């Protein structure tokens, strides 16, 4: 990590598109803003109301019921605003992440991996120190895919093909998959795609933690989720792909050989993340084109 950049003194800009002059490296701050953008406007947090079926029974106490969520929402919005204008950036990242954690802890039904994934990375960015560099992010990414691949590998339905057939045919109604599966022995396509998915996720975990170049894991993650997005006609992996693209600047920046990537204008990252985020809404229009 370029410590000189991270510790550059001076007054940070109020311009949200600038990321210089804060305690965070510019690429990390860019990632933090993109992640916060993905969590914003936190409509579900606004709509959730007082704690409901909390993971921690204490959050159901009358003491918390009235003020906890309003306080979390105020802190969340204040932190997003501060982060966007380059003020108190590390504290803002931690506050946003903790706001989401409290929201989920207070509302069991709000638990979602696509919500926790960007939140955990925001927390880790908030805990940035030049001494550990990108390693906490690498460990986190590896943990995600170790967990994902292990859960699948230990489930017989993934190897048998039952899971993927149910997902693609019954749940997502993917036409090409149903046609292809119809031409093969029962569950054969599901078994192949299931095994490939397990292998791909295990490979991402290994590449993230073992490969000398820290870019390997994040690039393979982006390729994997893009593939899933295409195979499911835009129904799956949108939020994970957005999150992967959002954390990509933090991963891509440290390598000294990434000069070319470093020059990628921040606006382009914003455009890419925004485009993928809006993809599910754009696809129906694209399908109507001649």
């Amino acid at each position, binding site marked *: 990590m370029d410590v000189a950049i991270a510790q550059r003194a001076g007054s940070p800009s109020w311009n949200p598109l600038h990321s210089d002059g804060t305690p965070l490296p510019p690429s990390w701050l860019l990632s933090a803003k993109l992640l916060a953008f993905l969590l914003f406007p936190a409509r579900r947090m606004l709509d959730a109301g007082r704690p409901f079926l909390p993971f921690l029974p204490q959050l159901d106490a009358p003491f918390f019921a009235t003020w906890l969520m309003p306080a979390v929402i105020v802190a969340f919005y204040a932190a997003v605003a501060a982060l966007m204008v380059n003020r108190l950036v590390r504290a803002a990242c931690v506050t946003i992440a903790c706001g989401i954690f409290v929201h989920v802890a207070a509302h069991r039904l709000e*638990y979602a*991996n696509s919500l926790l*994934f960007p939140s*955990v990375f925001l*927390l880790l960015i908030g805990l940035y120190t030049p001494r550990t560099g990108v390693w906490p992010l690498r460990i986190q990414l590896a*943990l995600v895919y170790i967990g994902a691949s292990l*859960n699948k590998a230990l*489930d017989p339905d993934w190897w048998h093909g039952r*899971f993927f057939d149910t997902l693609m045919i019954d749940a997502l109604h993917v036409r090409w998959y149903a046609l292809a599966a119809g031409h093969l022995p029962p569950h054969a396509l599901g078994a192949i795609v299931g095994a490939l998915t397990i292998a791909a996720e295990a490979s991402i975990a290994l590449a993230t933690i073992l490969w000398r170049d820290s870019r390997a894991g994040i690039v393979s993650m982006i390729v994997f989720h893009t593939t899933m997005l295409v195979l499911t006609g835009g129904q799956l992996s949108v939020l994970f792909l957005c999150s992967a693209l959002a954390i990509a600047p933090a991963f891509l920046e440290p390598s000294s050989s990434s000069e070319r990537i470093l020059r990628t204008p921040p606006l382009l990252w914003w455009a890419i993340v925004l485009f993928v985020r809006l993809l599910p809404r754009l696809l129906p229009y694209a399908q109507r084109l001649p």
Partner: protein
Amino acid sequence: MSGVIRPAVLALVFGAQVAGIVHARVNGTRYLCWAPYDQIAFYRIEADRHGAALTPAEIVARYRMPAAGRENRSIQHVLQAVAQYEATYGRPDSVVAHVTYSVNGGMEQTWTSQ
């Protein structure tokens, strides 16, 4: 943040996820173990109060979940939510809930709240 707190928070964050991955093997839930779309379960919630069935709208209002829906992580999440509701907020109502579900295209099973 001080030099002691940061490593402690990192250890807590990573440790919770390792515990989640191990815990998922034991009790069937999929919290903190990164398992989105690992199990597809179609379910249907029915409930009755003193023999009278609740309407789908009443079920949505009660559990904040659709009366018939899909769970993409583990059906245990649905069952735990219904069980928690009936053991806490819903306890005075004497409602009995039945969740009929099928996991990954398998046979239908029914769970009943106590």
